[in-house]
């Protein structure tokens, strides 16, 4: 068992942080890599990016949005409970080098994935401008941490309840216009990444995105995670999860993420009903 040693709720309980004992993974993990977790014998294998690691303490941290049955089940786990299986580190680490001015753009829970990359880019000597957004103030996560990891931080909310009123792409446009930006890293919901890439393409700035297709093994043996990159099929779990955003077929990814929508809904409804009955 992989024990939970720390737990926190964020964004009005819609996002949960778990710090988990996994010494082998903690020692090996690099920014951009993910783990696959399975909570119970009957559970699903769920991929989540490591938001942080502590090699000395032997722990990894995940931050996830509660969207369906498995993440709801994860949320029900308390400190001292544990995951039955944790596998990793998986995926290619982010290539962290000094290129000059970089912009890190994060939306929703994507900010959790973006944070260690932002920190790594700053440590590598870049001048880091970050832009993070959420639907409203209550759903914003890791603002303080992102501030510390960047030289400058912009915050946006869709409803204007905090920071800039509007989308992260509005601020991005402004930043790209006023600065000589060498690299953009965009991580968040697929539509957000798609629009970020559309914009950076107009400015001709290289852009990295982190893709989240449905996965099972995470080791390249099933092909369920395939994505189209520049017209070629790649496996996100081993060839990614980071890719050149200008080459990604986001529309295909969005469709493929819907593969099991009906089953997922049925499964989540059943779980919620069971919980209600128990209570």
């Amino acid at each position: 068992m992989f024990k939970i040693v720390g737990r926190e709720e964020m964004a009005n309980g819609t996002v949960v942080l778990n710090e988990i004992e996994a010494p082998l993974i903690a020692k090996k993990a690099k920014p951009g890599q993910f783990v696959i977790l399975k909570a119970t014998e009957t559970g699903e294998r769920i991929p989540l990016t490591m938001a942080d690691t502590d090699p000395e303490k032997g722990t990894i941290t995940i931050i996830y949005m509660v969207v369906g049955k498995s993440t709801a089940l994860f949320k029900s786990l308390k400190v001292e409970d544990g995951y039955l299986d944790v596998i990793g580190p998986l995926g290619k680490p982010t290539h962290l080098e000094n290129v000059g001015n970089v912009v890190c753009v994060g939306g929703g829970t994507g900010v959790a994935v973006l944070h260690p990359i932002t920190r790594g880019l700053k440590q590598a000597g870049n001048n880091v401008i970050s832009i993070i957004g959420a639907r409203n103030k209550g759903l914003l996560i890791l603002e303080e941490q992102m501030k510390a990891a960047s030289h400058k931080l912009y915050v946006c909310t869709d409803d204007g309840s905090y920071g800039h009123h509007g989308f992260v792409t509005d601020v991005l446009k402004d930043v790209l216009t006023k600065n000589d930006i060498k690299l953009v890293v965009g991580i968040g919901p697929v539509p957000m990444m798609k629009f970020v890439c559309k914009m950076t393409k107009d400015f001709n700035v290289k852009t990295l995105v982190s893709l989240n297709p449905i996965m099972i093994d995470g080791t390249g043996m099933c092909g369920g995670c395939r994505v189209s990159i520049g017209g070629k099929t790649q496996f996100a779990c081993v060839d990614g999860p980071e890719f050149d955003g200008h080459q990604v077929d986001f529309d295909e990814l969005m469709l493929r993420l819907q593969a099991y929508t009906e089953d997922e809904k049925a499964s989540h409804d059943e779980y919620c009903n069971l919980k209600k009955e128990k209570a």
Partner: protein
Amino acid sequence: MAEIAEKKEKIPRQSMPEQAAKVRAKNFEEVPTGYSPEVAMIEAKRCLQCKKPACVEGCPVGVDIPGFIGHIRDGKFEQAISLIWKRNGLPAVCGRVCPQELQCEGLCIVGKKGEPVAIGNLERFAADYARKSGECELPVKAEPTGKKVAVVGSGPSGLTVAGDLALKGHEVTIFEAFHKPGGVLVYGIPEFRLPKEIVFAEVEGLETLGVKLECNAVVGRTVSLDELFEQGYDAIFLGVGAGLPTFLNIPGENLIGILSANEYLTRSNLMKAYLFPKYDTPVVRGKNVITLGAGNVAMDSARTALRLGAQSSRIVYRRSRQEVPARGAEVHHAEEEGVEFHFLTSPVEFKGNEKGRVTGMVGLKMELGEPDSSGRRRPIAIKGSEFELECDLAIIAVGAGANPLLTQSTKDLELNKWGYIVADEATGKTSKKGVWAGGDIVTGSATVILAMGAGRQAADSIHDYLTRGW
């Protein structure tokens, strides 16, 4: 001799009872239910106890076939299984999945005139008897040698190496990437053909011998080979299989509802999607299912689809019936259950709807031309013969390749041009000191028994190294 042969032939080959095709096509329980002791003893009487048994030559691990069959004939079942175990550590598995018609049974003398002795069924009987009765003596373990061996991968090759070396007194740890051990036996081959309980019983047997099992350990990621050496392992065996799915590279292949057989079977078997929603992992349940390819993997996929509620399950294969690579028994079972075969048909394109879901496959008719390098007649497309087959699930089962995850992260391991590990044929030694390899990662997709044979050879060579040097 001829007279005896005639007399013996009077006993017909004992068939194994099976679930009726219509019933079993709707459940995941095992199809053949096994011999009773009485029937096994009758079948065993059919063996001529040849002095120079041809069957043994057909067995890649050289089981003493007439020997164990003689014990069954005499009702000495414990002795039968002890004799099998001397050469084969996974008889309950092999009895069920080996291509006996190409191996032992294919060479059996009785089979020259009539039907061969049912060696596979008898092997299965002996193993199941032992597992159920628990009456059999455990093999004796040698004194501890103080040497440590890491086995990477828990498929048939890895399990064989682990068992052999543990018996020889070495301290063995198996590292497995998945959360459950067994390799293809667990994630690939379905429950109705090989109940998982049998595989787990074999693994438990190894654990009683002192073998340690580390699941969730992706070697090359969680830990590297060099780190294993640093941790004090004296030798490493790589039995990581050929787990890279091959796709067709035709238009429309990324539509929803098109899965590699690896994904389809892993969801259903390892993740138990056939028990969804009791188990959380879903799998596409097609009404009209097409499976591309005609090997064991394709048969398993097409038969799984029926059990998951398909109204039609069709195998589409480029070549003709003669070239079908699956075991005869699997093809037979699939046909009985209602799987349709479309031979000499090659997929050209997949069609989908606005939701990105597959709705059909465009196929092209083929005819057979001259034999190719594999000796099989090469299929040639008939121009203008395109036609469409409706489907809402297509499973790609056209082969597998070498997964580069481990090999890419281990620079000093020599690979061939397809990415398989180069290993000495007789010993399994690789180009890296202290590292052996065997099974599908060396030969490409093959069989359970060949993987076990390679494991046996490597274990002998590793033992030699640990006691005498490289």
